[in-house]
């Protein structure tokens, strides 16, 4: 597959939030302020990229030669947890300001289903190394795009008069539905 097409389709058309519904928890939790959304987006790009490359290497260099493919789930989730912990420690040591900005969002990335999904998707789609790299950047980039757009809309929404039952999360889901309608029209792009 053409690499550019792969990038576009992974980022916009098969957007991880609007078409696969993955990473909904941080999407709902962190999207109340634009600055938080931005920091979370950067952290997710870094973690998904690193974790998918490592799990790709682990799968083809260790699990396949040993015929342990069924251990994929357990090893990947441990790898992701370890990688998030490592990122946490490195950022804490070398850039305390960035660490302060990201705050509790860093450890929470472990339970972001998007990370595990990208790592496993690279294997099930039988991507080669270059396609894996492109996919592992495009998917979190789409995640960040959605998160930032969504956060700007929600910031505007705070002063508005929403029906009481819809206040908070339900109205956010209505917005997500409208955004999903907009993004379905992009499917003609590729």
């Amino acid at each position: 597959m053409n690499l550019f097409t792969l990038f576009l389709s992974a980022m916009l058309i098969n957007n991880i939030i609007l078409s696969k519904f993955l990473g909904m928890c941080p999407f709902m939790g962190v999207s109340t302020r634009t600055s938080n959304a931005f920091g979370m987006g950067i952290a997710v790009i870094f973690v998904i990229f690193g974790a998918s490359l490592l799990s790709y290497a682990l799968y083809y260099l260790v699990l396949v030669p040993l015929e342990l493919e069924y251990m994929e789930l357990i090893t990947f989730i441990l790898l992701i947890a370890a990688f998030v912990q490592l990122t946490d420690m490195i950022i804490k040591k070398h850039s305390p300001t960035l660490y302060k900005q990201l705050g509790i969002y860093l450890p929470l990335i472990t339970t972001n289903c998007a990370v595990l999904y990208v790592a496993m998707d690279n294997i099930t789609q039988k991507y080669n190394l270059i396609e894996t790299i492109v996919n592992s950047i495009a998917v979190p980039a789409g995640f960040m795009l959605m998160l930032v757009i969504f956060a700007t809309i929600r910031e505007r929404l705070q002063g508005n008069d929403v029906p009481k039952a819809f206040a908070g999360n339900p109205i956010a889901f209505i917005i997500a539905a409208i955004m999903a309608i907009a993004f379905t029209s992009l499917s003609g792009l590729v």
Partner: protein
Amino acid sequence: MSENKEKKSVFMSKLLKENPVFGLYLGICSTLAISTSINNAIGMGVCVTIVLVLSNILVSCVRNITPEDIHIPVYIVIIASLVTVVSMVVHAFAPTLFSSLGAFLDLIVVNCIILGRAEAFASMNPIGPSAKDGLNMGLSYTVSLLAISLIRQLLGTGMITWDNPFTGANVFSLRIIPETFTLPLMTSQVGAFLTFACLAAAVAAINNKEAK
């Protein structure tokens, strides 16, 4: 009679207020993605309930010998092993369900409900109550999933169908809304968000009313 009524109200309040999906917003990812048909909803609900009960039991067993520093990795390994087993069993005995659930079967590992219950309940309580808590949470997850999928399937295709999960053969199928009046939008991603928003608002409205 009154005792029965009280039991019923406790059950309803558990279902509404402590509902993991609509009340606490846990495990939304799989809820939105899987709820396209009743078959998927029940299949997923059963798998999650099984994993939840077993993981609560196992976590409760090891709760006194797990060092505090590494308890999350220990719980995750327990959950991941259980999910691998369940996924293999489903692949072997219900291949159609396996292919329609796809990646979401493996993604039960990162379903916040399971780790959340292990952390908040099973790590502090004995085996019996933990198993009961897992069953409770699993059933209310299944009910929520079923509610969304029923609305989406009914409005989207106009039919209520039930396939045998082991063979994939159609067991039961009933058309309620004529084909001209169906909304294909409801089975797409948009319908998932809309249905979820309306149901969550309904639950919030009931809870608000009770609070008054």
